[in-house]
């Protein structure tokens, strides 16, 4: 039977959550497409492949020094080799930093169409229909792939991870790699030191809606102080230098799960939501009623935050 292949992701010898999420998606959609769900793990040995085999029935391990660390050249070659050796029709890849770096390259290598950054996959009339965010999450679209083979990447956290079960089969696939044109020198932590906001019970976070550095400081910091909270920011706040990078919440910053998360002037881009959706209570204040942050907040106020925050301060 032809196969639906997920590509595992790992760093420092540890599988990413996205890998187990893909296992769930593959097992859910493979039967409707008449495919078998399988995984590939590219690493120096097969120890992680054995780990992935707890989540999916069959795993192909490419064990080679060329994939001990990640490079797009090696990953695209490895995907192509497994697809050709094992009668693979579809490939699922996480829409993570590494996934974004090689998924489109792998799609071209196997002559497949790619639909990226999806959050849902269903089978309609035997055909794979994919849902994805557009316009910063204000709208969604559905797409399909028209080539025989397909590559789909999924947003991190769109599905729950698969549960571990009986160990599946692990076999190896040999790949003759050509040398990578990119060389990784090191992986470094950029926000080493700084504040650890991940332990805070309450977080007051500001976004682009704060307008400038002075307003951010004048509005967010006093409210945080009054609530005994940490203050934080979404990506545009960090990019603009309104506060320190160690206070960034989101995919490229910290993941936080406080009891209360106050999102002021934050639109709720997926990358931000990934870092705070586990918060117990989320309050969103935004003047745009269509801001996606309202889709995940507990309480919302549709108004100018500069008028709302003084009201909150007055009642605390």
């Amino acid at each position, binding site marked *: 039977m032809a196969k639906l292949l997920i590509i595992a992701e790992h760093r420092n010898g540890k599988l990413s959550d996205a890998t187990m999420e893909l296992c769930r998606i593959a097992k859910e959609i493979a039967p409707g497409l008449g495919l078998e769900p399988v995984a590939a793990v590219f690493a120096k040995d097969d120890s992680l492949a054995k780990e992935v085999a707890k989540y999916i029935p069959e795993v192909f391990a490419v064990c080679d020094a060329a994939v001990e660390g*990640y490079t*797009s050249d090696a990953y*695209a070659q490895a995907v192509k080799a497994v697809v050709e050796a094992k009668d693979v029709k579809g490939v699922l890849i996480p*829409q993570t*930093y590494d996934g*974004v*770096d090689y*998924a*489109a*390259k792998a799609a*071209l*290598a196997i002559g*497949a*169409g*790619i639909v*990226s*950054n999806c959050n849902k996959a269903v089978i309609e009339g035997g055909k794979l229909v994919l849902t994805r965010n*557009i*316009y910063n999450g204000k*709208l969604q*679209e*559905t*797409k*399909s792939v*028209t080539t025989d083979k397909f590559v789909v990447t999924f947003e991190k956290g769109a599905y729950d991870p698969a549960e571990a079960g009986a160990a599946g089969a692990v076999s190896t696939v040999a790949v003759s790699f050509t040398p990578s*044109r*990119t*060389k990784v*020198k090191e*992986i*470094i*932590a950029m*926000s080493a030191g700084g504040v650890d906001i991940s332990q805070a019970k*309450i977080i007051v976070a500001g976004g682009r809606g704060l307008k400038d550095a002075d307003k951010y400081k004048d509005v967010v910091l006093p409210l945080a102080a009054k609530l005994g909270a940490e203050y934080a920011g979404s*990506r545009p706040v960090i*990019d603009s230098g309104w506060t320190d990078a160690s206070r960034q919440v989101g995919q*490229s*910053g*910290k993941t936080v799960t406080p009891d*209360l998360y106050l999102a002021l002037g934050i*639109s709720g881009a997926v990358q931000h939501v990934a870092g705070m959706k586990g918060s*117990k209570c*989320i*309050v969103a204040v935004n003047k745009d009623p*269509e801001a*996606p942050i*309202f*889709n*995940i*907040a*507990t*309480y919302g*106020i*549709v108004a*100018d935050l500069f*008028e*709302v925050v*003084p009201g909150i301060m*007055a*009642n605390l």
Partner: protein
Amino acid sequence: MKIVVCLKQVPDMESKFKIVDDKKVDESQIAFKINDFDNYAVEAALQLKEKHGGEVVIVSAGPDRAAKDIRQAFAMGADWGMHITDPAIYEGDSFVIASALAKAIETIGGVDLVMTGVQTEDLQAAVTGVMVADMLNVPHCTNVVKINTADGKAFTLNRELEGGLNEVMDLTGPAVLTIQSGINEPRYPTLPGIMKAKKKQLDAKSGADLGVSASSRTAFIKMFVPVSDTMAEIIAGAPAEAAAKLVDKLKNEAKVI
């Protein structure tokens, strides 16, 4: 250095998006601008040009209205551009657009570096830059947050990773870099810049001019407003009144303060 920046004109994301026939958004409600990520790519290209000399060429696929934002990049300091005005290209999927961009870059010739945003704000696919690199058979780096080069040929790049990590990597140009937001502070056009931009060369090209034969590998089905099953309880009232109600709910209902 000869640097090409691939740029897309996108809607301002604070626009009101009204869907027409499940297929497209009503453009009459929308203001257009340069894709934010591409704006950082333009600035990064201009900074390399200032250090190493050479020229910055803008390549964009889009309808006639996109010319306004190509000229915006000219006003920032880019030298000239190529505008692919063919609907068969810009209405195609990422594969078609990447094919046309790659052909345009080959037509320009002698390009040392291609830069573009990590993704567009409207379609959020993050695949076009990587495809262009593969089609040109050159290496790439995505999510670039730092660029170091002594000679404009050998590059040391920081690639952003999850959780505040960076991968430091080396590659040799020509190459494609997809630029992450926050890498620099994009400049605003000056008045003389805006005046000069009006006279800069902008070549209109069709798919046939560039020899593009690609067709889409994906199909769009429909678009819709997402339905959330976890929609917020919206607290109504004037700002002061809503704020008071919110504090009461946080104290007595959610019990989090």
